[in-house]
């Protein structure tokens, strides 16, 4: 998808406002641990994303807007 969806598809909770925080914290942790295989569950808990419908929105999102910006 181009950009993170504004709301969760299932429950309608606004999740997009947490995306940038999440991305930053995941990158930081990857650097810290020196590996791409990290656990992110506690970051989602911390951002207040509790339900699994909302969690999958963030977990499974691939940001494509930068790749498409060239065209």
């Amino acid at each position, binding site marked *: 998808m181009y950009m993170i969806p*504004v709301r969760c598809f299932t429950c309608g909770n606004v999740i997009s406002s947490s995306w940038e925080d999440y991305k930053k914290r995941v990158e930081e942790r990857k650097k810290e641990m020196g590996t791409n295989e990290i656990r992110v569950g506690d970051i989602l808990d911390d951002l207040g994303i509790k339900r699994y419908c909302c969690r999958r929105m963030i977990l499974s999102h691939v940001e494509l807007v930068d790749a498409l910006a060239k065209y």
Partner: protein
Amino acid sequence: MMERDRKVIGGFETKIDIRELSDRRAKFILSGVSSAFANAIRRSAIAEVPTLAIEDINIYENTSVLFDEMLALRLGLIPLETDLESYVLRSECKCEEGCPQCQVSLTLSAEGPKVVYSGELKSSDPKIVPSDERIPLIKLMEGQKVYLEAIARLGKGQEHSKWQPAMCSYKNMPIISVSKCNGCGDCVEVCPTGILKLDDTLKITNELDCSLCRLCEDICELGAIHIGSDPTAFVFNLESHGSLPAEEVILRSIDNIKEKTDGLKKCLKKLS
């Protein structure tokens, strides 16, 4: 714990016990009602309480990578802080073309390179602003521009989910009973919500958090633990999306049920 009101509805003694109440969240136990009554409140809160959301958009310029339609959809989903005292539904408004009583105009003008957030929307009414300012709307590259005007109107969740004021759900009140427990601790390990604790005897720390999954019942060889539920008590969980405070959503949903039943009463009187 607060006990707000006691009333008798249909032979039951109805009681509301508020466990948690903040701007965004509400958790309460409604006891002494039928499941139909509890469901009426849930459905009314989701589908009948009006909120403001962006409905029409005039795009004057959009040179970003997002199509106009995608941008419009993203804008529509932004929750706007709603003042239900000063706005009326379009269908109930006296005007024909739209007036300051039934619509608000918001403008957005931005030039790249940057990420445009919902906080950059400029509203014609200072009270009506996006309740979350950090929603990323579009990413603009060098030289890309967006200039648009958005018209927000009141609407109901039954028409489109962007007007849904809250997420509302309920479950039956869990009742956990323990007898003849030998203290093996299997149920403590298997419980996904972690509400069981084993000191000398088995203790239940927070009954309300029980998800009624019955894993503890299945693992207990002695059959010592039993999970039941009270069919007349409901644990409500309401989470506002930001346009209205949680308390207002509940109160308005109940007002809505009252209005509907009054309407029904009047209709029936006419017939008899």
